[in-house]
C-alpha cells in the first residue's frame, strides 16, 4: 500500500515534469517576445532588453525551466531547507501573480465541473437503470434517441442555443458571469441561491454530453450484469427482486462507472473551456484561452500545472475508492 502510494507519487512528479517541459518548449517555439508585449508599444530596444532581463526571458529556455521548477518546489534549500508555498510565477501581461489567478479561477471551474458531474450522475443513474430494466420500451427508445442527440451536440452550439432561448427570449436566466458562493461582494450578486442560479445553464451545457455517454454506459452495464450467473444464484436463493437489484446487480454494474468517472474528470476539464468561454466564467479554462491569446506563458503553464495536479490527485482518489469498494482489486 505504502509502496503503491510512493510509486504513484513518483509517477505524478514525472508526469508534471513532462507536461511542463512540453509547455515550455512550445512557448519557446512561438515567435513572440514577451518582453516586448509586457513593455508596451512605445518601448525602445534597450527598454525591451531591460524588461526581458527583469522577466528572465533573455536566458535560454532550460535555465528558465529550471527556475520555473525551482519556484514550483514545495521546499527550498535557500538558507537551510524549509517548506514554502509553491510559486507559479508572475503573469507577463496582467499585473497579477499566477497563484492569485489560479486561486480566483479555481472555485469557478470547480463549481462548474463538480456541479456538472453531480447533475449528469443524478440524471444518468436513474434513466440508465430504468431503460436497462425495460429494454425496447417507450422510455428506453426515447432515452436512446436523447443519447444520440446528446453525444452529437457540441457544447458551444448547445450553449449558444440555450442562451438564445432562455436568456434572450424568455429572460429566465442571467446572460453569464459568476456569483460567489460564500462572501457577499459589494454590489455583486452572491450567496448559494445566486450561485446556483448563475450556474444552471452552464451546468446543463457542460453535462449534456457526459450525461448521454453515462446513460448509455450505465444501461449497458446493468443489462450485462442482469445476465450474470450470480444474479441467477441470488434468485434461486429466493431473493426478492428489490434485493437482487440492489445488492447483486447495482453493486456490480456501477463499479466500472466509478473508474470511468475518474478518467472522465480530466476530459471534462477540457470541455469546461468551451462552457466557460460562452458564459463568461473566469475559470481555469477562460484564463487558459486568455493566456494563449496574449502569449502569456506563465498563466498558461501555471493553470496547466494546477489542472494536471488536480487530475492526478482525483485519479488517485478514485483508484483508492475503487480498491475499497471492489474486493478483487489489490493495490500493488
Amino acid at each position, binding site marked *: 500500500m505504502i509502496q503503491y502510494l510512493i510509486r504513484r507519487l513518483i509517477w505524478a512528479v514525472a508526469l508534471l515534469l513532462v507536461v511542463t517541459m512540453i509547455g515550455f518548449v512550445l512557448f519557446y517555439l512561438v515567435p513572440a517576445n514577451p518582453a516586448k508585449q509586457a513593455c508596451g508599444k512605445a518601448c525602445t530596444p534597450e527598454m525591451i532588453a531591460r524588461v526581458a532581463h527583469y522577466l528572465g526571458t533573455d536566458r535560454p529556455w532550460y535555465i528558465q525551466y529550471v527556475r520555473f521548477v525551482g519556484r514550483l518546489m514545495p521546499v527550498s534549500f535557500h538558507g537551510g531547507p524549509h517548506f514554502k508555498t509553491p510559486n507559479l510565477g508572475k503573469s507577463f501581461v496582467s499585473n497579477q501573480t499566477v497563484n492569485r489567478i489560479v486561486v480566483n479561477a479555481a472555485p469557478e471551474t470547480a463549481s462548474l465541473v463538480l456541479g456538472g458531474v453531480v447533475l449528469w450522475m443524478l440524471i444518468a443513474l436513474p434513466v440508465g437503470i430504468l431503460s436497462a430494466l425495460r429494454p425496447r420500451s417507450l422510455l428506453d427508445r426515447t432515452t436512446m434517441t436523447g443519447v444520440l442527440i446528446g453525444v452529437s451536440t457540441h457544447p458551444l452550439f448547445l450553449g449558444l442555443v440555450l442562451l438564445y432561448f432562455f436568456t434572450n427570449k424568455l429572460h429566465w436566466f442571467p446572460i453569464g458571469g459568476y456569483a460567489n458562493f460564500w462572501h457577499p461582494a459589494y454590489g455583486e450578486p452572491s450567496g448559494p441561491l445566486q450561485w446556483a442560479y448563475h450556474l444552471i445553464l452552464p451546468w446543463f451545457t457542460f453535462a449534456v454530453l457526459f450525461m448521454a455517454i453515462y446513460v448509455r454506459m450505465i444501461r449497458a452495464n446493468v443489462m450485462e450484469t442482469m445476465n450474470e*450467473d*450470480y444474479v441467477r444464484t*441470488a434468485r434461486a436463493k*429466493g431473493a426478492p427482486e428489490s434485493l437482487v437489484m440492489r*445488492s447483486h446487480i447495482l453493486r456490480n454494474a456501477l463499479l466500472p462507472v466509478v473508474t470511468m468517472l475518474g478518467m472522465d474528470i480530466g476530459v471534462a476539464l477540457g470541455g469546461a473551456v468551451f462552457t466557460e468561454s460562452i458564459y463568461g466564467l473566469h475559470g481555469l479554462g477562460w484564463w487558459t484561452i486568455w493566456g494563449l491569446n496574449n502569449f502569456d506563458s506563465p498563466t498558461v503553464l501555471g493553470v496547466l500545472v494546477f489542472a494536471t495536479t488536480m487530475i492526478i490527485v482525483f485519479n488517485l482518489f478514485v483508484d483508492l475508492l475503487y480498491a475499497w469498494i471492489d474486493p*478483487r482489486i489489490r493495490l500493488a
Partner: protein
Amino acid sequence: MALLEVKDLKTYFATGDGIVKAVDGVSFSIDPGQTLGIVGESGSGKSVTCLTIMGLNPKRNTISSGEAFFKGKDLLKTSQQQLREIRGNDIAMIFQDPMTSLNPVHTIGHQLMEAVLLHNDVPKQQARARALELLKQVGIPRAEGRIDDYPHQFSGGMRQRVMIAMALINNPDLLIADEPTTALDVTTQAQILDLIVKLQQEYGSAVIMITHDLGVVAEIADEVIVMYAAEIAERGHVDRIFNNPRHPYTWGLMGSLPRLNADVERLVQIEGQPPSLLRPPKGCRFHPRCAYAMDVCRTVDPVLAPVPGEPDHLQACHLDAETKTREAERLLGAFATEASAS
C-alpha cells in the same frame, strides 16, 4: 407420494427468429431421497426443464405450460411470491460454473447468511453460525478464517463447495444440480460428487443431477432420463438404461464415449449435428441422424412407451423390439469383449 411430479412440461422462448421449443412435453417424477439423472447434449432442454420448475426463466419471452406438482402444489401456477418462498428453502439449485455463480463483491459469509435470512426469522448471529456449520460440513479447511473471504480468494472446487453449502443451508427437499462438476478437474469432480452423495444421505434430499457425462450419471443416479432435442428419448432405472438401452440415441451416446476399460479403434459416431429447436424435424426428432430410421420415423413422432416386460423403462422409438435387443446386445458385447481382451 412423489416429491415432484412433472407432467407434459413445455417451455417455449419467443425470439426474433421465431419460437424456440426448448422443452417440448416432458414428464417425470422423483421420490423423496431419490437421485434422478438427466443426460443430454447442449441444447437438449435438460437445464431449461429445471429452470422452468424453479421459475427462473426470463419472464419477458417465456411461454410455459404443463404441470409441476411439488408436495401437491403446482409450481407453474403459484405466484412469484410463493415461488420465492420455495426457492432456496424447499428446492435449491447448484450451477455449472462456480467461478461466476458467486457474487464477487460480497463475502461468502454474507452470501450464505443471505440464504438463511431470506427464509428464516433468526438473528444474524445465528445465521452466521449456521453458515459456518455448513462451510465445515462441505469441507472448507479453516472455515472460521475463511467465512469473511471473497469468492476470488477460493479455487474452483472450493467455490463449488460454497455453492453446495449455500444450497443445503435450509435443508431443501430437492436439490437441483446443473452440471455441477463440468467446469472442474477430474480429481475435484470426484470430491464434489462424493460430497453431494454424502450430504444427500445426511439430509435426505432428493437430487436432480443434470449432466452430459454418462459416467457421472452411472455413478450417482437411481433413475435416468435421456433427453434429445427438447424431448425425452428414454427413461428408466440406471441399471436398465446401461444394461438394456432401448433408444438408438442412447446407443450413440454410449458408443461415442471413449472408455478407460475398452480399446476401440473407431468410436461409434452419431452423424450430423443436433437439430435446431426453431424448426425441429418432423416425426421422430432423431431420425435425420439415426442409422435405423424407417419411413414411419419421418412422419410420426413416437410416444414414450414402456419397454415390453419393463413397465418402468420407457422409450420413444418406432424400432421393433427384436432389432433393439439385438443391437443393444451387440453394443454392450463390444465393450465387454474388448474390456476382457485388454
